């Protein structure tokens, strides 16, 4: 049982490049989330999904896109990377919503130069 798997763990991007951060869970959780964490700050919600085919914006969605074609996968797409997107990205999942607790991935540390 792998839980929540994020890839890659580290990545350096040049300004203007694009990439996809992968997130997969094998717990049949309905809810999935993407957060970013800047140094000294809390986790800020980028996007979330309550089930396959359903996504919604969080607090800081600009510059990102998501899709949820299956229950297991919730990739986060960065288009035209900017230095402001340098951060640690966390994916999480939950069976039926935040009140049931999150299972987190190990994070992706992204640097945009």
């Amino acid at each position: 049982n792998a839980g929540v798997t994020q890839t890659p763990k580290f990545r350096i991007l040049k300004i203007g490049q694009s990439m996809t951060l992968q997130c997969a869970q094998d717990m049949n959780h309905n809810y999935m989330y993407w957060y970013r964490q800047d140094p000294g700050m809390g986790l800020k919600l980028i996007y979330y999904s309550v089930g396959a085919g359903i996504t919604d914006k969080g607090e800081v969605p600009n510059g990102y896109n998501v899709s949820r074609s299956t229950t297991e996968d919730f990739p986060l797409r960065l288009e035209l990377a900017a230095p402001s997107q340098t951060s640690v990205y966390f994916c999480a999942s939950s069976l039926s919503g935040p009140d049931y607790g999150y299972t987190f991935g190990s994070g992706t540390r992204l640097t945009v130069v």
Partner: protein
Amino acid sequence: AQRVTQPEKLLSVFKGAPVELKCNYSYSGSPELFWYVQYSRQRLQLLLRHISRESIKGFTADLNKGETSFHLKKPFAQEEDSAMYYCALSPGRRALTFGSGTRLQVQP
């Protein structure tokens, strides 16, 4: 909109001393509150939740609606408690709002 405030970035105590990690929130409804912890080189994980009224690893947290607080307490700190602690609020069936975190350092 909801907000979670953890006023201390770093809390340093000696082993055996009491610990209180502060968390204040603002939310117009009836909140559900949580504490998450991240030990060194490990993933963020749920420590405890208000609705369960549980004690995990000796930690407890009481919701004080009058003071809008959910402070995390432990009577006797252990070195293995050293970690980052995040308070979080659930506004319902959406997503958690996290505080900025407090690093607890327990010195021998």
